[in-house]
C-alpha cells in the first residue's frame, strides 16, 4: 500500500471525509468554500492520478497488487483501469461544479448539505476504485445514505416520500446483488479455495467448470436486479423521476451525472465478465426492455409539464440507449456505451444545473408558466440550448459520438455465428430503437426548449405587476428568494457551466483520446462473449432444428418457410460449418438445403 497510486487513491478517498469533518466543525458560512476547496483538491489529485496512469491503452489494472486483507477474504484492494479512471475523472470533475452551482440555492443547514456531499464523493470514488466486490459494495451502497439526506432535507415539497422511495428501491435491489456476490464467493470457498471477494478471483471462478450454468444464471439475475434498479432500467425506473423532481440541484446533478453510472459501471465491471453464458441467455429480455425504455419513455417525456421531470425521464430513455450499446456485446457498442455514460453525465448534469438556475430565479419548473426566457436570460438560454443539443446528439457535440456508436454497435450485433462479434439484436429491432432514440429523443427535448427558451415571454411573477425579482410568494423550503441573483447568469454560474460546455465540445470533435482508452478495456471485458453468443445461437439452432425435424416428418414445407427472414438466413449460413452440423439430426440437415 505504499506505492504512489495507492497513496493517491487513498488520499482521494480520505480528503472528502476530512473536508466533511472540518465542515461539521467550521462556521456555517464557510461550509461551501471548504466543500468546493476540498473537492477541487480531489479533482487535482485525480488529474495527477490520470497523469501517472500507465495503462491508458492496455486495458490492464493499475496498481495490480493486493492490499491487506480483512477477515473472510474481504480486502480493500484498490485498482483502476482506463474506464474506472474516466468515471473517476467524471465524478471529481462534476462534484466541484455541482457544489458551485448550489451556492445560492442551499440557504439552510448548509453544513449538512456540503458535508454529506463530500461523503457522497468519497463513497462514489470507492465504488469506482475497488477491486474487491465487498469494497465495491460498501461504496456502492453507502452512496444512498448521503443522497437520502440530500433529497430528504433539501428537496421539494414531497421530499421525504421521494427520498424513502429512492432508498428502499435501491437498497432492496442491491441487497439481492450482494447475495449473488456472496453466493459466488461461497461456492468458490466450497471448492477448497480460501475465501476471497476479489473481483478477478470471483470472475475467474464463475467462468470455471466448478460453477454450473444454473448457478451462473441465477447469480447473473441477482446481480442484474441491483444494477438495473440503479441504472435505472425500464420496469424499475419509477424511483428516478420522483427523486430528481424532489432533489436539490446539486443532488440531481450528481444523481444523474455519476450515481446512475454506478449501475452501468457495475454491469460493465462486475456482472458482464462474471457470467457470459447467463448474460447471453437473459440478453434478449433485457434488449426488449431497452427498446421499450427508449421508445415508451420518450413518449412519457412528451407528457411531462415539469422541465426537471422531463429531463429525468429522458435519463431513463438515454440509459436505455447506453444499455443497448452494452448488450450489443461488441467492442463498438460497449465502448460507445461507456462513452455514453460519460457524455450523459456531462450533458444531463449540465441540464440539471441550468434548470436549477432557472428555478432559483422563477421558483417554478412548470413549462406552462414559463416561456421565451431567452429574452430575459440570453446567456442562460445559450447554455440551455447548447446542452440540449449535446443531449439530443447534434453532430459535433459529444452526445452524437456515443449515440452513434451505441446504435452502430447494436446494429452490427446480428445473430450470426459467422461474425467475429455476433450479437443478439439484429437490424429490425434497431430500426425501432434508432427511431426512438434519435427522433423522439430530439423531439421532446427540442419541444421543451422551444417552449421554455423561445416564444413569447412568460414569467410566473409577471402577472402581478412586480416583475419576477420580487415574487416573495414562491419562496420554498429555504424561505429565501432570488434577491442577490442577477436576471441573467452570474459570473459564478457561467464558471460552473462553461467547463462542462468546453468538455462537451472537445469530446464531440476529438473523441479519440477517450475512445482509445476505452477500447482495450471494453474488449477485455467482453472477451468471453463471442464464444458464449455462438454457443447460445448453436443451441437455439439445435432446438429449432429439432422442432423442424419433428415438423419435417409431417409437413416438410414448413421447414423452408423461416428461411425467408434475414435472421435465419444468417443461421443457415452457419449450418455449413462442420461444427454446427455435427450436432444436428440427420433429417433436418437433409431438409434444409
Amino acid at each position, binding site marked *: 500500500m505504499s506505492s504512489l497510486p495507492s497513496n493517491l487513491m487513498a488520499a482521494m478517498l480520505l480528503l472528502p471525509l476530512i473536508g466533511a469533518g472540518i465542515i461539521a466543525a467550521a462556521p456555517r458560512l464557510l461550509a461551501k468554500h471548504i466543500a468546493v476547496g476540498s473537492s477541487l483538491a480531489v479533482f487535482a489529485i485525480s488529474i495527477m492520478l490520470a497523469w501517472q496512469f500507465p495503462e491508458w491503452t492496455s486495458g490492464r489494472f493499475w496498481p495490480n497488487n493486493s492490499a491487506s486483507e*480483512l*477477515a*473472510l*477474504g*474481504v480486502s480493500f484492494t484498490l485498482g483502476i483501469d482506463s474506464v474506472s479512471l474516466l468515471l473517476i475523472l467524471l465524478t471529481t470533475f462534476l462534484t466541484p461544479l455541482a457544489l458551485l452551482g448550489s451556492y445560492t440555492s442551499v440557504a439552510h443547514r448548509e453544513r449538512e448539505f456540503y458535508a454529506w456531499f463530500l461523503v457522497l464523493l468519497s463513497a462514489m470514488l470507492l465504488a469506482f476504485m475497488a477491486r474487491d466486490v*465487498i469494497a465495491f*459494495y*460498501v461504496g456502492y*451502497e*453507502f452512496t444512498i*445514505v448521503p443522497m*437520502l*439526506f440530500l433529497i*430528504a*432535507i433539501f428537496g421539494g415539497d414531497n421530499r*421525504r416520500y421521494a*427520498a*424513502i422511495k429512492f*432508498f*428502499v428501491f435501491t*437498497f*432492496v435491489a442491491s*441487497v*439481492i446483488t*450482494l*447475495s449473488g456476490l*456472496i*453466493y459466488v*464467493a*461461497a461456492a468458490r*470457498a*466450497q471448492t*477448497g*479455495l*480460501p*475465501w476471497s471477494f476479489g473481483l478477478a478471483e470471483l470472475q475467474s471462478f464463475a467462468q470455471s467448470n466448478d460453477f454450473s450454468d444454473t448457478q451462473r444464471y441465477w447469480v447473473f439475475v441477482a446481480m442484474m436486479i441491483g444494477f438495473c434498479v440503479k441504472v435505472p432500467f425500464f420496469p424499475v425506473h419509477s424511483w428516478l423521476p420522483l427523486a430528481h423532481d424532489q432533489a436539490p440541484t446539486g443532488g440531481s446533478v450528481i444523481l444523474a451525472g455519476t450515481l446512475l453510472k454506478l449501475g452501468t459501471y457495475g454491469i460493465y465491471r462486475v456482472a458482464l465478465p462474471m457470467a457470459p453464458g447467463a448474460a447471453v441467455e437473459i440478453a434478449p429480455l433485457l434488449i426488449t426492455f431497452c427498446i421499450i425504455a427508449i421508445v415508451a419513455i420518450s413518449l412519457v417525456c412528451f407528457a411531462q409539464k415539469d422541465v426537471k421531470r422531463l429531463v429525468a425521464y429522458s435519463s431513463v430513455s438515454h440509459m436505455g440507449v447506453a444499455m443497448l450499446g452494452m448488450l450489443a456485446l461488441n467492442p463498438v457498442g460497449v465502448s460507445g456505451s461507456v462513452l455514453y455514460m460519460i457524455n450523459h453525465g456531462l450533458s444531463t448534469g449540465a441540464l440539471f444545473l441550468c434548470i436549477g438556475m432557472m428555478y432559483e430565479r422563477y421558483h417554478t419548473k412548470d413549462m406552462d408558466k414559463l416561456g421565451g426566457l431567452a429574452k430575459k436570460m440570453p446567456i442562460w438560454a445559450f447554455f440551455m440550448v447548447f446542452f440540449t443539443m449535446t443531449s439530443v446528439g447534434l453532430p459535433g457535440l459529444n452526445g452524437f459520438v456515443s449515440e452513434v456508436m451505441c446504435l452502430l454497435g447494436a446494429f452490427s450485433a446480428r445473430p450470426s455465428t459467422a461474425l467475429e462479434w455476433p450479437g443478439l439484436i439484429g437490424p429490425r429491432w434497431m430500426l425501432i430503437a434508432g427511431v426512438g432514440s434519435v427522433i423522439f429523443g430530439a423531439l421532446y427535448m427540442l419541444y421543451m426548449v422551444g417552449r421554455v427558451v423561445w416564444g413569447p415571454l412568460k414569467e410566473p411573477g409577471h402577472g402581478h405587476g412586480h416583475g419576477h425579482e420580487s415574487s416573495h410568494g414562491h419562496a420554498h423550503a429555504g424561505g429565501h428568494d432570488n434577491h442577490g441573483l442577477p436576471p441573467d447568469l452570474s459570473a459564478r454560474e457561467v464558471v460552473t457551466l462553461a467547463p462542462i460546455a468546453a468538455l462537451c465540445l472537445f469530446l464531440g470533435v476529438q473523441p479519440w483520446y477517450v475512445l482509445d482508452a476505452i477500447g482495450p478495456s471494453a474488449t477485455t471485458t467482453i472477451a468471453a462473449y463471442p464464444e458464449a453468443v455462438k454457443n447460445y445461437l448453436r443451441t437455439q439452432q439445435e432446438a429449432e432444428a429439432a422442432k423442424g425435424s419433428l415438423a419435417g416428418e409431417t409437413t416438410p414445407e414448413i421447414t423452408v418457410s423461416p428461411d425467408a427472414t434475414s435472421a435465419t438466413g444468417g443461421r443457415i449460413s452457419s449450418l455449413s460449418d462442420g461444427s454446427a452440423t455435427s450436432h444436428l439430426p440427420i433429417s433436418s440437415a437433409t431438409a434444409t438445403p
Partner: protein
Amino acid sequence: MINQLTLILPEILLIVGAVVVTVLGVARSKVWRDAVPTVTVILLLASCFLVHVVSTEDRLSQAPLIMPGLGLYAKTLLLVGAAALVLLGFGLIDRKLEMAFASGRAAFDPIRVMRGEYHSFLLLSVAGACLLCNAPDLIWLFLAIELVSLPTYIMVATSRAARRAQEAAVKYFFLGAMSSAILLYGFALLYGATGTLQLSGIREAFAMQAAQGGVGTLGIIGLTMVILGLCYKISAAPMHIYAPDVYEGAATPLTAFLAFVPKAAGFLALILLLSTASYTLNAANEMVAARLPQPIMALLWMVSVLTMTLGNIGALLQKSLKRMLAYSSIAHSGYMLIGLIAGPAIVDGFGGSNAGGSALSGTNAALFYLLSYAIMNIATFGPLASLERNGEEIETLDDIAGLRQRHPGMAASLAIGAASLIGLPPLLGFWAKLYLFAAGIERGQTILVIIAAVNSGVSVYYYLKLLSEPLVAATNARSETISASPSMWPRMASIVTAIMLVVAPLFLTKALDAANAASAADARTAVRVAPTTDTLGVSGDDQPSAPEVKVGLGN
C-alpha cells in the same frame, strides 16, 4: 470439582454482589443508595476481568464442557454489555421517589426503595446467563436459564410505577412459565432418548444414532420441544407474541436489557443444545460435524422465516418506538437463527481447525451477530433511555422529530444504530449480516438467505424513520418539550456504542477470531470427556454399548 468452582468464580462474585447491592439499596444514607448502580457496574466489570483470569486453557479443557471456548467470548460479551445496560438505567429507576425523599414529601421507606432490588436482580440474571455457558448437563442448563428469566419478571413489574408494567410482567411471567414447562418436557424427552443428562453424552448418543441412520423420533421430539421452549427466550415465532407488550410496558433501560440478556442466553442455550445434534460418526468412529437432523433443520428454517417476516411486518405497522424496536428485535432473532441452521463448520476430521478459512461456521456467525446486535441495541435504546418528557418516557416517532437541533449526539446515535440495524455498510451491522449470509449460503441455505435479504429490505422502511426523523424532520410541538435526563451516563453509553459501530469494523479480524475460538474449540474435549460422562450413573447402560455400535458401523 474445585476446578469447576474456580471456573464459576465470576458468577459467584456476581451472586454475592447481588446481595451486597440489595443491602446497599435500602441504606438510609442517600450516598450509599446512590452508589448502587456504580457498584453494580464495578461488579460486572470485575467479574469480566475475573472471567479472563480463571479461564485458562488448562482449566477449560479439564472441565466437562462441550464448548469450552464459548464461556470466554460469551461471558465477556454479556458482562460488558450488561455493564453498558446498567449505565442506561442510571438515575432512572426510582428517581421520582428519591426526589420525594429529598424534598421531604415522603418519609424514607426501605420497602418502597427498589433501586437495590433492580440492580441485584439484574446481577442475578446476568449471572444466570454466564452460568449457562459452563453447563455440563441439562439440569445445570435448565437452572441457569431459569436464573436468567425469573429476575426479569420482577424487574419488569417494578421498573415503572405505571400499571402497564404490571400487566407486562404478568404476561411475561405466565408465558415464560409455560415456555419453561415446554423446555423441561423437552429435556425429559432428551433424557429418554439418550439415557444421559450430560451434554457430551447426549452428543455422543446423537452422533451414534445419526451414524446408524438418523436421530430417533424421541430425540427429535425432545429437540423440537426444547427449541420451542427456547424460542420464547429469543422471542422467535411462534413464541414471540409477548415481546411487544412486555417491551412497551417495561422501562426503556430494562427493555434494552430484555432485548439482549435473555435473548443472548436463549441463543447460547440453543447453540449448546443444537451442537449436541450436529455430529455424526465417520468410518473411523470419530465424531465429525454434520448437518442437523432434517426435521430439526426444517423446524428451525420455518421458525427463522416466520420470525423475521412477522417481526418486520409487525414493525412496519408500529407508531410506538418501543413496540417498533420490539418487533425489530424479533426480526433480528430470525436472522441469527440462520447461523444456527448453518451450524458449526464441517471440517475434515474431528478437531480440525478452520484456520485455512475455507470452512465457515454458522455458529461463529451467530455469535458475532450477537456481539454486534448487543452494540446496536444499546446505541438505539440509549437515546430513548436518556431522553424524557416531563419525567415520562418518550414514546412515539413524533417525539424524536428534529432531535438533532437540541440533542445532536442522541440523534446521531439513534441514526447510526438504525443504519447499523439495517445493515448499511460500512457499519458493524453490515459485516455481521455479511458473515451470517456467507455462512448460510456456504451451507446451502441460499433460499433462506434470500428471504432474509428481502426481509432486511422490508426493514429499511421502518428503520429509515428512526434514521430520518431525528436528522431530517423539523421539530414539532411534542418534540420541543423533550429534555435529556439528568444523568450523563445513558448518553455516554449510547454515544460510545455508536462510535463503536463505526470504528469496530477495523477490528473485525479480532472479533471474528474470538467468535471462532468460542465455537471451534468444542471439538477438542468431547473425545476426552466421553469416557467419564457417567457421573450421574444413569447412563451406565448406554455407555458400554457405544463401542460395539461403533465397531459395527466401521465394518
